[in-house]
């Protein structure tokens, strides 16, 4: 079949107009869907008692072997003494709570001027270095801001572990891929809270969507003075701390 020039131009213009209309329609629908979510966590250091429930709950929920010394979340203990020395430890990630003296050093009760616990986890950065450096794109950020690892695609090079400023990543001892906190993505997608948030007895961890004005975390960010870990990295961490002291790194 021969197509005349006139006919060809006609066909071409019809097709391009169709594409143009489709793109406009797409844009309209996209705007309606764009009620973006951004999951974050607020940790109130003043409330944490270092019981380690979150660490156990996390390990059980996410199948990280209990005896393996790698943690999706862990609790650090800080002790500041009269001579303004800082002692930090996190014995087994704080899983057994803190009953004994830290780092093998005997610190007398009367020498302590300040002590507090800091729960840590993946900061689900807005600008995550782990996602930037992953050579195969196995780690990625979801639309709602959670950074995940594709266990079927990760080659296990460890570059993300090196790139994370927070030590949040490790090699999962069983599946042998990079692993980290997911905000319990499988739970939050069902409307549940992350395991650590659910079990925390003092509500030191609060989880929510910072884009939703009715959400608790929205109100906290509005009313409280919060801080993040290592802001100088430019990663824009999305785990916010209330009552964070300068000793915390």
């Amino acid at each position: 079949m021969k197509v005349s020039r006139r006919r060809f131009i006609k066909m071409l213009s019809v097709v391009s107009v169709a594409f143009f209309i489709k793109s406009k329609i797409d844009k309209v629908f996209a705007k309606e869907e764009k009620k973006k979510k951004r999951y974050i966590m607020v940790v109130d250091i003043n409330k944490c008692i270092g019981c380690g429930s979150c660490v156990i709950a996390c390990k059980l929920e996410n199948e990280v072997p209990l005896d393996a010394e790698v943690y999706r979340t862990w609790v650090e203990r800080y002790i500041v003494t009269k001579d303004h020395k800082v002692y930090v430890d996190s014995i087994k990630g704080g899983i057994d709570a803190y009953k004994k003296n830290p780092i093998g050093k005997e610190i007398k009760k009367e020498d302590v001027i300040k002590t507090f616990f800091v729960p840590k986890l993946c900061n689900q950065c807005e600008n995550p270095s782990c996602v930037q450096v992953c050579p195969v794109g196995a780690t990625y950020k979801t639309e709602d801001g959670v950074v995940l690892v594709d266990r079927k695609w990760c080659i296990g090079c460890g570059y993300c572990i090196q790139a994370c400023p927070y030590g949040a990543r490790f090699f999962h001892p069983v599946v042998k891929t990079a692993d980290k906190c997911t905000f319990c993505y499988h739970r939050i997608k069902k409307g549940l809270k992350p395991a650590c948030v659910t079990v925390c007895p003092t509500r030191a961890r609060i989880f929510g969507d910072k884009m939703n004005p009715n959400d608790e975390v929205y109100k906290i960010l509005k009313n409280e003075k919060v801080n993040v870990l290592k802001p100088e990295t430019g990663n824009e961490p999305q785990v916010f701390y209330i009552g964070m002291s300068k000793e915390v790194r």
Partner: protein
Amino acid sequence: MVEVHGFDWTIKQLYTYPNEYIYWSVLIVVYPYITGLVAGAFVVSSLYHLFKKEALKPVSRFALLLSLAFLLVAPMPLLLHLQHPERAFNIYWTPNTSSAMAMFGYVWLTYFIILCLEIWFVYRADIVRMAMEYKEKRGFFNRIKYYIYKALTLGYYRIDEEALKLDEKVGKFLSAIGIPAACFLHGYVGFIFGSVKANPLWNTPMMPVIFLVSAVVSGIALTIFSYIIAMKIMKRDIDMVALKTMSYYLVLFILLDFALEMLEILNHAYKQTEDWVVLKNIVFGSFAFTIFGVQFLIGLVIPAIILSLPGLTVRRAFFASILVLIGVLSMRWNVVVGGQSFSKSLYGYMVYDYPIFSTNILILKESVTAVAFLLLLPFIFLIIFNKILPAFEFKEEKHSTH
């Protein structure tokens, strides 16, 4: 106890984040070492092929083969250290454009192709001659050799003057694009470390440059070292002009390398930013010996002096080249292991208790034994290459009698 990667060889001191271990082991120490040798050896050959340093003609082919032998080994430490080596090709299928490491596959492949082409053009006339020679010969091995050479000719048998001129032209062109490719191959390795902003010891724009210059240093030293050994094995005379020329370039690059590496340390030591509280205990503490003793003194200063003193002898050049090779290896060690020897919390340290041998395959593959094997492997490749494509052309009248 389940296997946590790094648990067996990491000793923690004071406070480190619970997930922190020495994840990048000796394998990642030798990986930049080997790619550096590749890049450096290529530069030696290019000095002849591209810049017409006639003095380096005797080693120009040898340096090319050396470069290829090490290039073939370069991905092996990476493969061994991957937790899922069976997925290694993912970096070809879904490269993440923002990842420096994702380029490795492509850069390596590009460089591999350039190097193979360069070797082919340099050797083409010889290959054709060999193919002709073995065509007539009888016997099983001669037939095999004939088929190998026949295959290597790729069906192109012209060796008239015009064809040879074209070979040289193309060879020169490949050398010209080979140098930036070699620099890219190694500069990017430096960038892998230099771009990690989470690690204060690595995080410096100097890193690619330092890696590149030290790569050239190690590559020249490797060529000197292997050339002397090869000549001793083949019982041939060493070309002193070539040796002296290489030594001359080696000293030049050593001086540059020394300046850059010192500058980097001074930069840390003078600025004393937040991370200096731990870095000072690495640089002037646990790593002081390997940094100032081995990397600088044994690896750069002493060889530079040995090579600069008048009346260079083979023995001195050989000794200096060994020192340089040790020094550059120690520089890689200081970067890779040193950078992982402190906690990112800046509250503690990690000591690398490297495994030498183990019956556990997971530990064995990241042990010193595995690394020693990897460093030996290129020389085995080299011997095989040399059997097919002789690296040296000896003039018969110069044949030494001893």
